[in-house]
């Protein structure tokens, strides 16, 4: 049983999305702290830089699939090579405004993905995810 609040990362090119999620998470004390990245490449760089210490590695990542530079899918292609260096289980949730069944199916077939969340991300959806993982 983990009785600790998680470290949450948000990877999304939309800064409004950052604001909204942060506001919900902070407002309800759902996270120990929040990391925000505007694209996959920056997030990947951060994870690579901090792979030696568990402290800064997020427990949960909310990953947007549609981003410039490096989108969610590309992030997921690159991630496995990092995974082995990271000593911590990172739960990645794809957060998308796409209702395209192809996208949902594609997400289901990627091992690294723990779940698919349809935007908008609400308090209930966040709580559900965090509770399911056994935090608190």
């Amino acid at each position, binding site marked *: 049983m983990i009785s600790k609040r998680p470290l949450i990362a948000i990877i999304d090119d939309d800064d409004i999305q950052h604001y909204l999620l942060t506001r919900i998470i902070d407002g309800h004390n759902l996270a120990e702290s929040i990391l925000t990245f505007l694209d996959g490449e920056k997030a990947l760089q951060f994870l690579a830089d901090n792979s030696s210490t568990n402290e800064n590695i997020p427990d949960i990542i909310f990953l947007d699939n*549609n981003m*410039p530079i490096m989108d969610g899918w590309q992030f997921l292609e690159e991630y496995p090579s990092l995974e082995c260096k990271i000593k911590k289980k990172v739960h990645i949730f794809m957060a998308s405004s*796409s209702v395209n069944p192809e996208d949902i199916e594609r997400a289901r077939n990627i091992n690294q993905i723990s779940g698919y969340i349809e935007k908008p991300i609400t308090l209930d959806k966040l709580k559900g995810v965090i509770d399911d993982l056994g935090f608190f």
Partner: protein
Amino acid sequence: MSHTIDYKELCSIFPSGYFCSQPDGTIIDVNQKFLELISYTREEVVYKKKFTDLLSKGGEIYFETVYSSILKLSGKVEEINFDFIKKNGTKIPVLINSVEVKDIEGHHVLTYTSVFNISQRKRYEQELLIAKRKAKNLSDDLMQANKVLISNSELIIKQKLQLELNNHLEHKNRQLSSFAHIASHNLRAPVSNLISLNDFYNESSDLEDKAMLFTKIEIVIGHLNETLNELIDSVKIQEDINITHEPTLFKTVFNKTLEILEVQLLDSKALVTSNFSEAPKIEYPKLYLESIMLNLLSNSIRYRSLDRIPKIHFYTEINSNEITLIATDNGLGINLKKHGHRLFGLGNTFHRHPDSKGVGLYMIKTQIDVLGGCIAVESEVDKGTTFKIILKKVSDDK
């Protein structure tokens, strides 16, 4: 040297048959040649046989309906073909000429008929007839084959039209699915943001917080508006299939583009060159060409490398009857492996550049597609990018 002609003898030994008949057809005189032709003796014929006795029944109908009528009406008949029946029952084809002899009052009293054996030429005629029938059959066959060919080619044309329709539908489908994608990413995301912001706004009792939320709402609305306008523009292009094509000089459009981007060009210190000599002009919607050049040039300036002097070159080529516009630069380049599939989508950017909106390439691809052209890109990261745009076939350029 004079010679007296014995007309009786002449008549008798004359090398063609001759006979004389009464109006009812009774033969009253014949010559030797005629008797030889029909193998009768004089005694068996004269005052014994009528003209029609030498004919078959079918021949008799022809005699009555055609030969006699013509003889009565014009006083003579020429080149009528009958089969005379010889004594032994066999037939001999003959050609006859007849002339009516009238008395002083104009009454028909005698008919003189000359008879030519045409057995020899009849065989040729038969061959001719057979050849003619063969030719007719052949031409009927050819006509039939031609009909089949025509109906086949009509079928092919129909199939081709169907194929074109299918291609058009497929293209429309691609546009639709691309629209669905745009709608979900570029419209749904800001709308859901708006809803969330609005919820916070309603929940919040702090005025300062409300004001801050409102600013954010305004920003999202701004984005939403921009996206909608871009979508509307692209829909306009896709509907604008009948846009007028006018003779357009590449140089003219390019110079206009340089003027529009004068400030950016000065800032970037880019070295811009062009060569449109291979295909100096094209029948193309001027507005589209302006939009294409403007987007390509502004992209090249925007994504220039700061490590070197930007070099941008625009030129035209004719490759296998197609006019191609090529824009090449030595800029940042694009990782095509990573981004190739999204290069021309709406709202996709590949550079962390403050001006990146991901609109330009989507727009020009739409314009090029609508006119049946295509756009290709070659790029290497940190080396540069080359856009090749096949605008249209030269053969259409009339």
